[in-house]
C-alpha cells in the first residue's frame, strides 16, 4: 500500500515493543503521525540495549509561508502568518 522512502527500512513501530521486554539490541522506533496535535509530526528514536541513544523530530509538512510573504503589503502579514496554525 505504501511507497517506500529512504529510511523506511528503520521503520519499527511502538506496538512491537512490549513493556518489560527489551527491544532488539539496536533498533529504531518511529511514530508517524503523532496524533492529537496540530500539524504533521514524526518522532523517531534510536534504541541500544533498551535505552534511547538518539532522537529525531521532523515536521512532515511545508507550505513555505516565509517564501509567500516577501514583497507584500506589511499590513497583510498578520493575515498570512495567522494561518501557520489555526488552533
Amino acid at each position, binding site marked *: 500500500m505504501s511507497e517506500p522512502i529512504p529510511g523506511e527500512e528503520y521503520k519499527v513501530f511502538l506496538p512491537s515493543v512490549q513493556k518489560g521486554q527489551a527491544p532488539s539490541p539496536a533498533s529504531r522506533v518511529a511514530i508517524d*503521525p503523532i496524533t492529537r496535535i496540530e500539524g504533521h509530526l514524526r518522532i523517531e528514536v534510536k534504541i541500544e540495549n533498551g535505552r534511547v541513544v538518539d532522537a529525531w523530530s521532523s515536521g512532515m509538512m511545508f507550505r513555505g509561508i516565509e517564501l509567500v510573504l516577501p514583497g507584500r503589503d506589511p499590513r497583510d502579514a498578520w493575515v498570512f502568518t495567522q494561518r501557520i496554525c489555526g488552533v
Partner: protein
Amino acid sequence: MELWQTRFVERLDQRGVSRRRFLKFCGMMTATLALPARYTGRVAQALMEAPRPPVVWLEFQDCTGDTESFLRTKSPGVDELLLDLLSLDYHETLMAPAGEMTERSLADTMTRFPGQYICVVEGSIPTAAGGIHCMIRGRTAHSIAQEVCGNALATIAIGTCAWEGGIAAAAPNPTGAMGVKDAVPGLASLVNLPGCPANVVNLTATIVHFLTFGSWPETDGSGRPHFAYGEEIHEECERHDHYEDERFVLEWGDEGHRQGWCLFRMGCKGPETHHNCPSVRWNDGTSWPIGAGHGCIGCAEARFWDRMSPFYAALEDD
C-alpha cells in the same frame, strides 16, 4: 427502524438535546439550505432514519482551522448533532491511535465500507518535487488523497486550501499546492466548502442535505453549493445602507468606525465575495468580521490571497 429511531432520540437525550431542540435544528438546517419550511419534517424524518455514514477526515497542508471551526460551537451545538449523525472514524487531530495504528484505522474503514464512506479533505495537496512537502506514514499526501478520495462514496473539500490551494498556493506557490479538484481530477462526487476557515453551519447543512436527499446540494461552476455561496456579501451586509448613503469609515477608530459605517474605503472585499457570512455568522451567530468592525478579506473566493490583497487597499469604485 423503530428501535433505531428510539436509540437516536435516546442518544440526543443523553447529550441533553431535547426533541424540541432537534426539530429546531432541522428547521435551521432547512432555512440554511434555502428550502421551504415545509421540508423541515422531511429533514427530521431522514435524519432519524439515515444510517450513520463513516467519515474519514484527512489533513494535508492545513492549519487545522477548519477542524477548529468544526469543533467550536456552543454545547450542545450543531457539531454535537453532527457527531451523532456521522461516525468519524479517522481524524489525526482527534483520534486516539498514533503512528502505525492510524494506518489500521484508515484501512479498517476503507475495507469495511468500500465506496460507502465520506472523505473530508482539509488543506491543500503539494505536487512539486514528487509531493514530498506533505508526508504521512512515509507516503505523500497526493498518493493518500488519490487512494482515499478515489474509493469514497463522496468527498467534501473543506476550506479554501482543499478547494483550490489556498495560502500554500499563494504566489509563488513554493510547493506546487493544489486543491482536491485539481490534484485528484475526475472525482464523481465532490463538493467544495471554501472559507478560511469554512463555517460549520455550511458543513452541517451540506451533510444534512446529503442524508436527506442522497445527493449534494446544487453547486455553481466552481463546485460550491448555491445556498452558501450564491449571494454577494455586500448585498446582504448589515452595513449596506451606509454604503448606499455614502457613510464610510475613513480611518480606524474614527467616528464612522465607532458608528458601524461601511468599511468599503478601508479595503472591505464584500462587493467581490460570495458567502453567507452575513446570515449564518460565526460562534453560534454571535458576530462576523464586518460585524466586528473589520473589512471582509474575500476568503471564500479563488486565489483570494493574491487577488484580494493588499487587504487594506480599497476596491475600485463602480
